[in-house]
């Protein structure tokens, strides 16, 4: 039978199947962080069950960490306690932890790929919905709840029903200034926030084939925002050369053997998918969201649509926008470049390239938050920090930061924030905060101009 990329990886991990029920799926790699793991450790401890394969787990502190003065004790009592709990749990169970300040610390979905922990053909889980990011390598990667974190601790397996398969193909030539973030925001604006529920999504076509690993991660990261548990892109030379030489990557002959296997992981020509979408790259433009879910996006030059729908009206009320109006020229006081969607070196290069030689608008507070210590070091090494500082920006320390505002990095009530993160839900970046999702280029331009501009007119 002809198989998809998803089938090939899934079928290779089935330990057992229950008649008319779920399958027992083997999990290769498990990533954990401070927020969704403590109750799972507690559950196991109460039941006297050991962690089965601690060597297949890595842990990081990212969601609930400050992005300044990381060398000092964490001020917030509850946060400090949660971080201590993670350290204690990892120590007790023999799990590798990259805690705050460690040279490999950072956002879980940034560090695992950069350490080569993420590889094609693997099954990878984490108690975080943006685990879909790792699908960029041709892995089956998805977010799980804390009960499932405990299940993986106990058995290195999960009980799951095989999801349906969908494919999104984008062919053609992208316009100037259109970034991976715009592509995924465009797709979600077209198909909606629950088009992927019950599915695993493969991204195919020239646009993804030509994309860097950083870009592929941005796309796969937001698969969950259209409801899909995960996204995948077939591994190719771009993937292999990204992995080669990284800390946990196979070395020498092992690497060659793995590459030979990874090359088999593409969807067979006549494989059947349950749902297919196809888009033309030239139709995509720089995007911006105007509402309170990631599907409420428009091309930056377009006006907000006029819809007679209660949820639509509620969202616009929250955002303080009018149906039918343009977002261009709106004054913006906050800009956030960071999150597991857009905090990799490429994102900061794009921002720096636009910012170079310009000055940040005085009224704008701009937070640049790298995804990891390694990204932070690279920003310094490549001289990007000097560009940012000369333009009036401050580079903060790594973490999830204002993407979910669990730490002190909160956008004040009623303020607009053009953000490279993944969710514009009500209050996501702070109580009453209003989020407009965008690419790092649009975010950088907003910080310079202090208002929303049509970036396409500023290029060339």
């Amino acid at each position, binding site marked *: 039978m002809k198989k998809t990329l998803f089938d090939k990886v899934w079928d*290779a991990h089935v*330990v*057992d199947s*229950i008649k*008319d*029920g*779920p399958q*027992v799926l*083997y999990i290769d790699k498990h990533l954990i962080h401070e*927020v*969704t793991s*403590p*109750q799972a450790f*507690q*559950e196991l401890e109460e*039941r006297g069950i050991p962690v089965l394969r601690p060597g297949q787990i890595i842990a990081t502190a990212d*969601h*609930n960490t400050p992005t300044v003065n990381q060398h000092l004790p964490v001020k*917030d009592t*509850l*946060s400090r306690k*949660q971080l201590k*709990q993670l350290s204690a749990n990892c120590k007790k169970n023999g799990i590798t932890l990259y805690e705050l300040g460690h040279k490999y610390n950072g956002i879980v979905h940034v560090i695992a790929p950069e350490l080569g922990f993420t590889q094609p053909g693997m099954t990878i889980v984490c*108690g*975080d*919905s943006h685990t879909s990011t790792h699908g960029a390598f041709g892995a089956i990667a998805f*977010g*799980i*709840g*804390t*009960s*499932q974190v*405990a*299940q993986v601790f*106990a*058995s*290195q*397996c*999960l*009980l799951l029903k095989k999801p349906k398969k969908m494919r999104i193909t984008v062919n053609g030539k992208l316009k100037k200034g259109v970034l991976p973030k715009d592509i995924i925001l465009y797709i979600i604006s077209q198909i909606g*926030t*629950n088009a992927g*529920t019950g599915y695993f999504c493969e991204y195919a076509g020239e646009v993804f084939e030509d994309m860097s690993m950083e870009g592929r991660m941005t796309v796969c990261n937001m698969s*969950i925002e259209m*409801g899909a*548990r995960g996204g995948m892109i077939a591994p190719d030379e771009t993937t292999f050369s990204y992995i080669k030489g990284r800390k946990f990557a196979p070395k020498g002959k092992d690497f060659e053997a793995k590459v030979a296997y990874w090359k088999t992981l593409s969807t067979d020509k006549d494989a059947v998918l349950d749902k297919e979408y196809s888009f033309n790259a030239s139709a995509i433009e720089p995007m911006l969201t105007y509402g309170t*879910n990631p599907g409420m996006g428009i091309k930056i030059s377009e006006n907000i649509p006029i819809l007679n729908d*209660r*949820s639509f009206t*509620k969202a616009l009320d929250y955002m303080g926008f009018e149906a039918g109006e343009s977002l261009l020229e709106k004054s913006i006081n906050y800009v956030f470049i960071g999150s597991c969607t857009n905090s990799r070196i490429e994102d900061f290069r794009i921002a720096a390239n636009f910012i170079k030689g310009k000055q940040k608008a005085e009224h704008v507070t701009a937070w640049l938050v790298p995804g990891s210590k390694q990204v932070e070091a690279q920003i310094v090494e490549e001289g990007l920090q000097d560009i940012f500082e000369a333009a009036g920006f401050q580079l903060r320390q790594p973490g999830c930061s204002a993407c*979910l*505002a*669990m730490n002190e990095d909160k956008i004040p009530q009623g303020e607009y924030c053009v953000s490279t993160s993944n*969710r514009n*839900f*009500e*209050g*996501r970046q702070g*109580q*009453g905060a209003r989020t407009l999702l965008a690419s790092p280029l649009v975010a950088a331009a907003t910080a310079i101009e202090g208002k929303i501009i049509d970036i396409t007119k500023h290029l060339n």
Partner: protein
Amino acid sequence: MEKFKQLRSTAIPLDIENIDTDQIIPARFLKATDKKGFGDNVFRDWRYDKNGNVNDSFILNNKEYGGSILVAGNNFGCGSSREHAAWALAGYGFKVIVSSYFADIFKGNSLNNGLLPVQVSEIFLKKVMQLLKNDPKTEIEVDLETQTISVIGTGLSETFEIDPYKKMCMLNGYDDIDFLLSKQEKIEAFELNNL
């Protein structure tokens, strides 16, 4: 996990679509290291304003409405995977959530906590929502054994889908850990052959 067989209760109509888990429990309440106390903060920013004053117009604060069934708009539980959302809803006292669509991760999290997600048709949801708006005393019965949801005294009834394995777990109060541990031999054999 608590067993669930059947429930008859009044219900709260929350007629909003795409309710994400950030609304169910905002991130700033995720700092706890146990599962207790999340019910106090369920829908926190809809129940209270920034200064902590009760928002009277929010349905959970309407004294006419109560019960252990929440009836919510399409695509309930989207967004973050936080199981704290299921803990918060269960902690508040809900045992059943009715919607026309549930996000995958939330659905799994609810089932793992004895909170039953009942997926109904759009038409059924609309009718139930209207009946509840018209009369807060309207009662709903959910029978897991027969997979039926009915609005008492109206003849309105529908069957719902649930994975047979998950149904068995809910009816008996079992969770997945015990089942997975019983597969240890097969898991080890898999590792031997594949890793």
